[in-house]
Every structure is written in structure tokens, then in C-alpha cells.
């Protein structure tokens, strides 16, 4: 099979382009593919995920969420943007809107349809917030200069002690 563009080179890539409702198939040789910026060589997509996240961030609406902070771990969306990682499970509630959009772009969907998790019943696990955990959260709030949050946590800690 020869290249659709130069009609000479051997086809190495079958490119499918979707623009609006229009779908175009283009069979390209290595040279023509390279000219169009289509990668054909054996390079491992090193920063695939990070790049994907970054490109998604650029398209994210200039977030009103930007200044918002997770009340559990004091992370911000800006922290997430620079590290690519969220701070804690509660960040998913704190930045719900932005994350839903991001998940949709990354996975094509934001709704989990896999196994449903049933958490252990209260009796099966001893799970109350311990003083140690609160101290960790207090420390983190202080480090990120969230003094109001720190005061709340300190009150809870006093209540516990």
C-alpha cells in the first residue's frame, strides 16, 4: 500500500481524524507522517500521563475552584496542577466540578460502573478519629498557613483529649 499523500512511500500509519461529524482516514508513509507531527518511531511515551493532565488543565475553565482548599488535607487545585496528584480522598469532593470534567477527558466518562464497594460495618473496624490523626492534620494546616482550619482542628483535638 502506498502513502495517500506522496503516493510513493510504504504506509506505516493509518491515521483517523475526526473533525466535527466528519471522519477522515489517511494512510501515511513515515516521512509524510513525520511532517504532520505523527509519531511513528519506537519512543516510549514517557510523560504521557503528565502531558495529558497538563493539556487538560490548560483547557479547564479558569477555575473559580483555584483558590479553594480541601478542608481535610489543605491541598489546592494549584497543588494538583503542579504535582499531578491529589492530596487525599476528600479532594474529590472539594474540587468535584473540575475533577468530573478532568475524569471525563481522561477516561471518556466520569461514572464508575465497575464493582460497587460495600464498606465494612462499623462493628468490624474500630474507626474513630484518633488524636494522632488530628495532630497530623493540624500540622499540615499550619504548614500551609491555614490558621482558621488549624484552630478548628485544635478545638476538636481538645475535645478529644
Amino acid at each position, binding site marked *: 500500500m502506498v502513502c495517500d499523500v506522496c503516493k510513493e512511500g510504504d504506509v*506505516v*500509519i*493509518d491515521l*483517523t481524524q475526526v473533525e466535527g461529524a466528519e471522519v477522515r482516514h489517511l494512510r501515511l508513509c*513515515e516521512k509524510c507522517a513525520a511532517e504532520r507531527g505523527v509519531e*511513528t*518511531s*519506537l519512543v*516510549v*511515551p*514517557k*510523560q*504521557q*500521563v503528565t502531558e*495529558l*493532565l497538563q493539556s487538560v488543565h490548560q483547557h479547564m475553565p479558569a477555575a473559580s475552584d483555584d483558590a479553594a482548599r480541601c478542608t*481535610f*488535607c489543605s*491541598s489546592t487545585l494549584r497543588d494538583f496542577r503542579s*504535582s*499531578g*496528584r*491529589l*492530596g*487525599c*480522598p476528600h479532594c*474529590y*469532593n472539594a474540587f468535584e466540578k473540575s*475533577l*468530573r470534567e*478532568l*475524569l471525563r477527558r*481522561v*477516561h*471518556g*466518562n*466520569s*461514572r*464508575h*460502573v*465497575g*464493582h460497587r*464497594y460495600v*464498606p*465494612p460495618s462499623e462493628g*468490624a*473496624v474500630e*474507626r474513630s*478519629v*484518633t488524636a*494522632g*490523626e488530628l*495532630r*497530623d492534620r493540624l*500540622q*499540615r494546616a499550619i504548614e500551609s498557613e491555614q490558621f482558621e482550619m488549624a484552630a478548628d482542628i485544635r478545638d476538636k483535638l481538645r475535645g478529644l483529649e
Partner: protein
Amino acid sequence: MTLDLSLLPSGGVQWLDASGEHSDIVLSTRIRLARNVEGYAFASRARDGERLRVLAQVRDAIPAATGSDDGVMLRVDEMEAGERLLLPERHLVSRELAGLDAQHPVRSGAAVFLARQSSIMINEEDHLRLQSLRSGFAVSEAFSEVEAIDREIGARVPYAYHPEFGYLTACPTNTGTGLRASVLIHLPGLVLTKEIGKVLAGLQQMGLTYRGLYGEGSEVVGNFFQMSNQTTLGRSEEELLDHLVRVVRHVVEREEESRRVLLRDAGYIIEDKLWRAYGTLRYARSLTFEEAMNFLSGVRLAVGLNLIAGLSVYTLNKLLIFSQSAHLAYTAGRALTENEANLARAKFVRKALEEEPDK
């Protein structure tokens, strides 16, 4: 702490035994589930105390959850750097857990529980990375094992879970099922026939991704590729796995076809090339890691094509792991310079091939 790898169940390398389906082309199947414990910050944001509490909570749950005493807990954070290097070489833990990447030094509370064909990394990017690792192409076996571990741990340790988003993970690329299934696959036929570019491009269009031998960010060496699902949300675990199986089967068929074409159209050239690779491994006095990997790839292909008989895939798999630098240093009992490692590698490979029956 001195690490004695011989104490691990099957030395942690049962997956090398070349027992599974298509094991000359598919080396191994790995399925992992990412889980986090409710009530703590994710591992990289957590404070030391939080990670240690996660570790303690999981450690308490493991005996009942795995239902066997056949496993070892290793505190990665208490190991010396040289020992930490061994674990990723053996594909037992990720580079991140071993603290080998500059941006992620080893974290307090980093640990791994190793059983015969499964493992649990603790305080990696996520609190828990439950894994099953099998020889050959064995997706459903690996999944049933890791699913059972997940069910039992999850019944004792509360996971972070969201009714809409599913299992919550530190990186949104794992959210939902938290499932990543990957097969380590050897594709010299497709590389030699230059078909590989098309196959890999097609793979990405099918929603799969590929990496090198050591996972994310690693180079492709010795024509080994790790292929895995790219997305984790919006499809069930079964759908994700079925899709991967279908695509990998297709890739295996393409590889087999390329091998037939090579033999038909370039028989003696290929035969010569592969025997030269064998000759080099059998007699060389110094081998770099890349050289060893590339020649091993050739010999592996020769065994698959029945050009070289009497050499087992198991031996080739072992060479792949034990000729790596940290393993050579471990055998020597001291750190080796690059030159020393090249000499030790050649000697080790020579000896292993000598012990195999005459070709």
C-alpha cells in the same frame, strides 16, 4: 536489615517459570488494583505518622485476608539503597516504592507484602497496590486472585470510595476501578519486519498503552513491551480485561505471522543472526546490560522458532532478571563498578548457557 531474597516465597520469581499460555511470547501477566484507606491523606501528602498507621492497619488485616502464612512483609523504608534496587529489578515493587526516582525518595512506612504469586505494595503513590503476577498470558487467573485479596482486605480496612467516581486514587488516571492489567510481551518479529510502528499506533487507537520493561517512563529494551489498559473509569473490570485480552491475542497473532514471514523470506539471514547472538552470549567476556538484553531477545526468538533446541524459556527468563546490575552485585556480595558488572554479567550468562544441554 539484610535482605535475603531466598527467604521469599519462590524467591519472588515464580512468574518466570514459563508455564502459562503463549509463554514464549507473553512473559507475564500482572493485574493491580489501586486502593486507598479512608481517613488519611494519600501517601505522598501524608505525614510519617499517617503512613505508619496505614501500614499497621493493613498489616493487621493481611493474615486473615490472605488466609495463609505463606508471605513475607518487607519494610522497604528500612533497607539500604543497594537492597532497594534489587526489588524493582525482580519486578517485585515499583521504582517509586523503592525510592529510586529523584523526585520520590523512599517514604517512611513504605513496605511490601510478598506472597507466592501476589503482592501488596503499601504507601506507594496509593496506600495500597494489590497485585497478582502470573507467568504467561493468564488474565482471568490473575484477576480472580487479586479480586479475592481486594474483597478480604476491603472487608477489614475501609477504602476511600465515591458513589459516582468509584475507588479514589492519588492520580485521577487510576480513579474508578483502580485496575491496571498489563502483559509483558516479546515482539522481535514485529520489530524486525518493521510492523511494530503500526501495531503500537493501533494499540493506542484501541485505548491501550505500552511501556518498556520496567513500567512507566522506562525504555524499550530487548524488544520487550508492557501493554496495558489506558483508562480505568466508565467500564467494568470485566470489560476492561476482555478488551485487553482481545487486543493482546491479536498482537500475539501478528507476532506469530511476522515470525513465519521472517523464516519464509529471510530464513538463513535470520538463522545466522540468531546463532550469532547465541554465540556472543555463550563466549563473550564482557557484556553491557543493553547488549545482553538484545542478544537474549535474539536467542529467545530462536527458541520460539525452534532454531535452537534444548534451551528452556525458563533459563532465558532467569537470565533476564539475574543479569541485571543489582542482582550481580547481590551475588558478588559487594557493589560493582560498571566494568566489573559487565565482566560478571558475561560470566554469569556463559555459565547458565553451559549448564544447558548441547545445542
